[in-house]
């Protein structure tokens, strides 16, 4: 059965190249992906001039597997919906969710919600990049909207 490795992008809109947080996630995904896997690189362009996170990751990809891009996801909820869509389309038995350890808990909750109704399992493969203080604060505050975003994801399948 196909396995989907979903890599969640990250950018701060200030730099043109791959953000170190994103690079750490990609590095983790390199270690995770095998030749039979489908690798989803997901993330939008915070600014037109910087290029989509998905494209930046694709350029830096050195791992195995068949790479597909999602340039539309603007948030963790968007990443989760894109990964769930891809998993459904592939009939994937497992999604390996690659993101930062500080982001993994909420990302997993949203992905599981987006995968409701399927038997697809989710496994977190976390990169150990240290969070910026701002990212950590934002992460906590985001829990306020997480249940609602998970519910809203039902109409975006």
């Amino acid at each position: 059965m196909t396995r989907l490795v979903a890599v969640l992008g990250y950018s701060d809109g200030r730099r043109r190249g791959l953000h170190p947080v994103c690079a750490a996630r990609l590095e983790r995904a390199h270690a995770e992906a095998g030749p039979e896997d489908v690798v989803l690189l997901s993330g939008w362009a915070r600014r037109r001039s910087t290029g989509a996170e998905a494209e930046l990751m694709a350029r830096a990809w050195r791992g195995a597997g068949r790479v597909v891009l999602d340039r539309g996801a603007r948030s963790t909820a968007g990443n989760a919906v894109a990964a769930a869509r891809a998993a459904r389309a592939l009939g994937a038995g497992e999604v390996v969710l690659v993101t930062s350890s500080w982001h993994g808990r909420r990302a997993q909750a949203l992905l599981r919600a987006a995968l409701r109704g399927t038997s697809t399992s989710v496994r977190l493969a976390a990169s150990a990049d240290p969070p910026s203080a701002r990212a950590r604060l934002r992460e906590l505050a985001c829990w306020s909207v997480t249940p609602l975003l998970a519910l809203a994801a039902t109409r975006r399948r």
Partner: protein
Amino acid sequence: MLRSRLAVACVAVLALAVPVAGCGGGDEQSAQSPTAEWADGFCTAITSWRDSLETATGDLADASSLSRESLERTADDVGAATEQLVDDLRALGAPDTESGQEVEAAIDELATTLETELTQVEETVQGISGLTGVPSALSSLSTSFSAMAAAFASSLEALENADVQGDLREALESSPACDELSS
């Protein structure tokens, strides 16, 4: 400027707390200072709130579609978790630090904002009429929950700004309960 303040506030509140050292056996009883107790209570309240919202998100697995009922349930779950958080935060009172009154005021302001938004959430859910009302209710709820998230960020910033001496920061960094927030 704002970014750097947020960064400092985050470090203070969600501090990458070091594990408590000296966990070997022995008969010594460590009595917590009032400030340490306050820090524990603060982080425990926020951790419980986050865990409740995580559970609520997981429970949505039963919802097959976006409907009035599923919106009501989500609003109820978030509302119950947040009401508990407001109660827990208010019960903390002022920390025993030089900036205690300011910290209490910042937390009280957060609690008031959360209560206001929860009232709005309740009114929105009660006002949903049939399927056609669901999209506008979703938008309204999203506004309320986003306002709650913004209130969190600004109150944590105010809390840090008030803690000029860094007493609270020290207590938060040493609190095992605050470690939970790092996961």
